[in-house]
């Protein structure tokens, strides 16, 4: 893809009067937009008919905010466009010290449960974060490397989760037996979907994958006999430490984890174990992606993203190559899904809505497509910000949506957009392009 940087806009610096006028206009538009929806809340009245609660104070505040914001923005930008060219200082820094950052991050992640501030809550949030990172890395194969826009990634996550739950419940298989099954089933789902649709144009593919995600969810809701319908599946077997369960009182002939190591029983053991389990899965995903990027198939994915026609002219089979990306991405989604099921012990279709797909996609795209560290950065932003602002729970998705728009405008290629070649003819210093 050619870097389509918008032509440098002309710096026509407007005068103060023009700016105030422009801001006033924006405020007026905001007022009209906000007046009905924010200003008049429909509430059921005493007789059951709807009446309105008026909040015009909020509308006024909103319009004023827009006025001031617009004015401030016009001074801050001085006629320049908001969008920036791809590689910023952050990208360059990360590309230079990427390996060190990775090692430092890994050490921190490994040591986290030992840190003094590591409460159960911290570990839980960290586990969630790690799972999103893993999902991001998995989807990165499909979107970042192969350039296939998948809006239904959560379907594979769901396939993994339900496969784990069903196999564990009905066949009594343990986590380590179910994990590969879940991965394989998700990959098969990926192939089944991919086979007919991978020939489609980019944005059509996006909508079809979205439709597929919804089909899976609707099937989960309506196929009561197998999936338990909207109630989901409860009492999914919890993971054990290679056969040693994390229970206070193990069953006949079983030895519990704390007995094995002669520890006091603590519910933290399982939490920490789950954390390390998630971390291990995520690391496997990362190693896999790092490795495969440097193999012919990985390069073919990237080449396909850049120019499919040129790929054909070089003898690359586009359909098979895309299908591999789709299947492998789905497989990691399946792994993550089975971890999700065992961690929660309960799954229902509600966990697999489109919004989840959007969040994972946002992590990949905001991170900078194809960038592994970018995924971590973006996942941290997206998972941790709402946690920090817990009391703003209701506003979380509002910020989330707004952030997606703003980051795209600010950096259309994501936070970290620098790409390092997968192999070099000349060693690092001296040959750096750009």
């Amino acid at each position: 893809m050619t870097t389509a940087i918008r032509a440098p806009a002309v710096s026509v610096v407007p005068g103060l009067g023009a700016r105030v006028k422009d801001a006033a206009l924006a405020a007026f538009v905001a007022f009209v937009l906000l007046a009905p929806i924010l200003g008049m809340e429909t509430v059921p009245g005493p007789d059951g008919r709807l009446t309105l609660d008026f909040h015009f104070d909020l509308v006024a505040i909103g319009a004023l905010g827009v006025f001031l914001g617009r004015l401030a923005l016009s001074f801050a930008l001085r006629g320049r466009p908001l969008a920036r060219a791809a590689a910023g200082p952050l990208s360059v820094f990360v590309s230079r010290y990427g390996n060190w950052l990775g090692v430092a991050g890994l050490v921190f992640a490994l040591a986290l449960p030992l840190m003094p501030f590591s409460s159960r809550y911290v570990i839980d949030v960290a586990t969630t974060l790690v799972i999103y990172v893993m999902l991001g890395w998995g989807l990165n194969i499909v979107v970042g490397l192969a350039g296939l826009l998948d809006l239904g990634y959560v379907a594979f996550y769901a396939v993994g989760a339900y496969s784990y739950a069903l196999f564990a419940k009905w066949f009594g298989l343990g986590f380590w037996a179910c994990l590969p099954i879940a991965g394989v089933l998700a990959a098969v789902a990926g192939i089944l979907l991919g086979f007919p649709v991978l020939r489609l144009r980019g944005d059509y593919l996006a909508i079809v994958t979205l439709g597929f995600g919804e089909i899976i969810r609707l099937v989960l809701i309506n196929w009561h006999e197998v999936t338990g319908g909207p109630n989901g599946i409860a009492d999914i077997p919890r993971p054990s430490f290679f056969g040693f369960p994390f229970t206070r009182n193990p069953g006949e002939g079983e030895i519990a984890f704390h007995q094995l190591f002669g520890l006091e029983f603590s519910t933290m053991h399982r939490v920490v174990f789950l954390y390390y389990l998630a971390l291990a899965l995520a690391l496997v995903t990362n190693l896999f992606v790092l490795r495969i990027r440097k193999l012919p198939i990985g390069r073919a994915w990237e080449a396909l993203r850049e120019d499919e026609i040129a790929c054909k002219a070089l003898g690359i089979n586009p359909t098979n190559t895309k299908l591999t990306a789709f299947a492998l991405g789905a497989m990691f989604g399946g792994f993550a899904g089975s971890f999700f099921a065992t961690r929660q012990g309960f799954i229902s279709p509600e966990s697999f809505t489109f919004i989840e797909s959007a969040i994972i996609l946002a992590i990949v795209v905001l991170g900078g497509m194809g960038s592994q560290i970018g995924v971590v950065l973006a996942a941290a932003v997206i998972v941790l910000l709402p946690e920090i602002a817990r009391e703003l729970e209701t506003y979380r998705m509002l910020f989330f949506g707004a952030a997606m728009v703003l980051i795209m405008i600010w950096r259309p290629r994501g936070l970290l957009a620098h790409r390092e070649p997968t192999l070099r003819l000349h060693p690092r210093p001296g040959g750096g392009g750009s």
Partner: protein
Amino acid sequence: MAYFLQQLINGVALGMVYGLIAIGYSMVYGIIGMINFAHGEIYMIGAFVSLIAFTLLGMLGVSWAPLALVVVLLTAIAITSLYGWTVERIAYRPLRGSFRLAPLISAIGMSIFLQTYVQITQGAKIKTLQPVITGGFTFTDASGFTVTISWIQILIVLLTLVLMAGFTWVIAKTPLGRAQRACQQDLKMAALCGVDVDRTISLTFVIGAALAAVAGLMATLYYGVIDFFIGFLAGVKAFTAAVLGGIGSIPGAMLGGLVLGLAEAFWSGYFSIEYKDVAAFTILVIVLIFLPTGILGQPEIEKV
């Protein structure tokens, strides 16, 4: 037979609503080649503005239905169009000519934002509107089955047909419509002809939003219940309709909407109501595979 007729009527009414939303997708896609993911939310906002306007009129004591309808229709169109315009200005225009996925991601963000915005300001509960228009025609056939055409269904069909006719005329005969078509066929050349492309694109969003507002009003009247989440499914289905009919083609969007509405009505009538949404998505997948340019779409020759 009567049952069949009833499903047919329901399907046509439903299809008209889908068609109205689908036109917005189709036009925006035709002109700038992006899927306006937030279009479903624009429809949802149209429904809410209608609901609020009805409630306000009720509180003001306006009880004559035709007057209320006209006022609500105009209000919904005006405010929803402004939403459409603003969304384009904020979330899409800065990204024009940018990296391919950027506007789509931005649109998804916008969609989430608008959905949450309405959820927060209006509450997450389902809103029920007192029926504004009731009654209709009822026919009974020899075996005792009845077929009902409600006034609302008639209104939906009539209003949609009028809008379609008017709109087709605008596109076909006025300078405005010509500029719009020129932009669809060749954005660069349109600019070289002196067309203000940015303005025309804004206008496209405004027209799409206005039609979505009408669809929102109709849905509110038809179902009587709405919530902040109705935009997502309606949006995806309308997009399906647009693709089905051949994206970029306005009669195609209407036709696609009809086909989808009928398919859904018959599917729920004869097979299973639970899987009616699955039916819509399945149709989408099948159409894209076997008829990638839709029923009335223009075939594309791959340039090498």
